């Protein structure tokens, strides 16, 4: 096992983590401000990817495709908030889960209806295709590196938005005390729609970015959504910082687990069984990580009690 391989896998883990962060940040914001759990967040991821693939197919421009993913997902998010979510704020979590589960069914089958069951493909733009040579002679795909960069920029932007701007102040106020933002004279329903649209846009953006590496298809969002839940549980609900740390932890654990565990078991087992034990265990590694965090900090690393 070479150093180069380890660096490469570590970068893959970070890239995976950054993508999870885009999902988890929206989820944790929406939960922190509105107190709702949104299972349809994975659908927004899928919608962003499909919007990007459709626009890229029509125009050939990757930038336009990315813009489309942001806009379409934000609009879809705002519509969901206006039509469904706002009826659920005062409901119990069961109703929220079931209503947003219903949305998944509608969006997934609706998309299958509109686009068919075959996956679409979104091409990596020429400017970002091919590998780049990093220090220590590591060859790494430029596009994946770009995702890491974009993700970190978005993370910084979110921190700035929340800590520096007026709307960020309102979001923080909303997280700590809902009555207070009413007292501050903030129009709560507009704020809620905005936060939801922002979370949706982040999810759609993540979907578009990943759509260029994997295929764009119905059902792509939910596995990512569940991983984002793991991230939120580890990081703590409502904490953007927790979402970032949790996302990187999950991304690295999963990627390095898949890479290292089979070789680890190979040290003392025959190759075929080492492969199967290693891959089975690594498929469970992030959940074991989540269980460990729960044992020691049931409210997550950065969650308040």
């Amino acid at each position: 096992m070479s150093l180069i391989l380890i660096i490469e896998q570590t970068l893959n883990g970070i890239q995976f983590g950054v993508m999870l962060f885009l999902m988890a940040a929206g989820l944790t914001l929406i939960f922190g401000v509105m107190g709702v759990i949104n299972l349809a967040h994975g659908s927004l991821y899928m919608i962003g990817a499909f919007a990007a693939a459709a626009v890229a197919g029509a125009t050939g421009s990757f930038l336009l495709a990315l813009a489309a993913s942001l806009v379409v997902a934000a609009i879809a998010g705002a519509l969901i908030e206006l039509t469904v979510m706002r009826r659920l704020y005062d409901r119990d979590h069961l109703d929220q889960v079931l209503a947003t589960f219903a949305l998944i069914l509608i969006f997934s089958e609706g998309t299958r209806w509109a686009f068919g069951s075959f996956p679409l493909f979104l091409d990596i733009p020429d400017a970002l295709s091919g590998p780049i040579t990093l220090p220590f002679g590591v060859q790494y795909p430029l596009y994946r590196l770009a995702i890491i960069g974009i993700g970190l920029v978005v993370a910084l932007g979110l921190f700035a938005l929340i800590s520096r701007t007026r709307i960020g102040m309102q979001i923080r106020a909303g997280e700590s005390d809902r009555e207070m933002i009413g007292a501050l004279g903030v129009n709560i329903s507009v704020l809620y729609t905005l936060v939801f649209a922002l979370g949706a846009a982040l999810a759609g953006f993540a979907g578009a970015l990943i759509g260029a590496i994997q295929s764009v298809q119905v059902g792509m969002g939910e596995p990512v959504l569940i991983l984002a839940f793991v991230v939120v549980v580890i990081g703590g609900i409502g904490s953007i910082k927790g979402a970032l740390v949790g996302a990187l932890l999950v991304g690295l654990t999963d990627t390095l687990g898949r890479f290292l565990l089979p070789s680890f078991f190979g040290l003392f087992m025959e190759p075929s069984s080492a492969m199967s034990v290693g891959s089975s265990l690594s498929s469970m590694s992030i959940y074991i990580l989540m269980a460990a965090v729960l044992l020691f900090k049931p409210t997550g690393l950065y969650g308040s009690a």
Partner: protein
Amino acid sequence: MQREQLINATTLLALLAVPLWAWYVDEPFTITLATKVAIFALAGVGLNLALGLGGLVSFGHAAFFGIGGYAMGILASHAQTYTPLASWPFLLEGTKSMPVIWLVAMVMSGLAALAVGALSLRTTGVYFIMITLAFGQMFFYFAISWPAYGGEDGLSIYVRNGFPGLNTLDPIQFFMLCYVLLAVVLFFFARLAKSPFGMALNAARQNDERVQTVGITPYRLRLVAFVISGAVTGLAGALFADLNRFVSPTMLSWQTSGEIMVFIILGGVGRLYGPVIGAGLFIMLEHFLGGLSEFWHVYLGVLLLLVVLFARGGLIGLLAGKEVAHD
């Protein structure tokens, strides 16, 4: 109250009458549909103990359903190839006997529920939902990546398992088995709901602090409820696998968890017979809407959304009216 009991009795009779009629006119497919209803109802009744009575919104019950299914698949596949499951520390053989399979399915899914519940119940609310969903996904990925029992492709068995004195390959006889199991579980759960345990569990759902103040630990109540709930859903999983003579990771998927929940909400949350009616409705929708359009899940989604937003008591709620307090 009287009205709800009438609805319950009618439901149970209808679920018996339809397949008997189908048997009489020789329509085995209808019997299979009714068997599916009985099995899904059983899974839903299991979940509803945690969800309705205990207020524990578990989105991971597919794990227990699937573990029950795999308990069947693994035992039966070893029996049909005459290979032992383990030869050390003691010889462990497969089996084709349903009662043994059911017992193993319930014990294994109950143990899984004990592990998942012990961790998840340290949290409440949204955390609990996300964590049960995540642990459910863990079992799903494990089933996919573990190659010994079919991995992603699942596991088939050639002949349905046997029950002493019955021909389980005859659809109506297998249906009757499932139906009787459902009825037995409904009977016990009706008793359980009124028992000291059921009363305390229900009280903990309403007010955790109140239960603590009278000196009862809610965590233990919930954990026991979660284990019973998981075991019953696991039993349903074993039956479902036997119905199809096939088990695959799909049984463990998050969609399955969602569907079991849908049975409950369609029928009515917190009503003992809610999942029975809900499962019946679900199978009817699948059958009729599925015949109309390949994309029937869209209609299911819309219906579900409407029920959640505007008809929270589900079908029983619509028919029987609001639940009233009674001793």
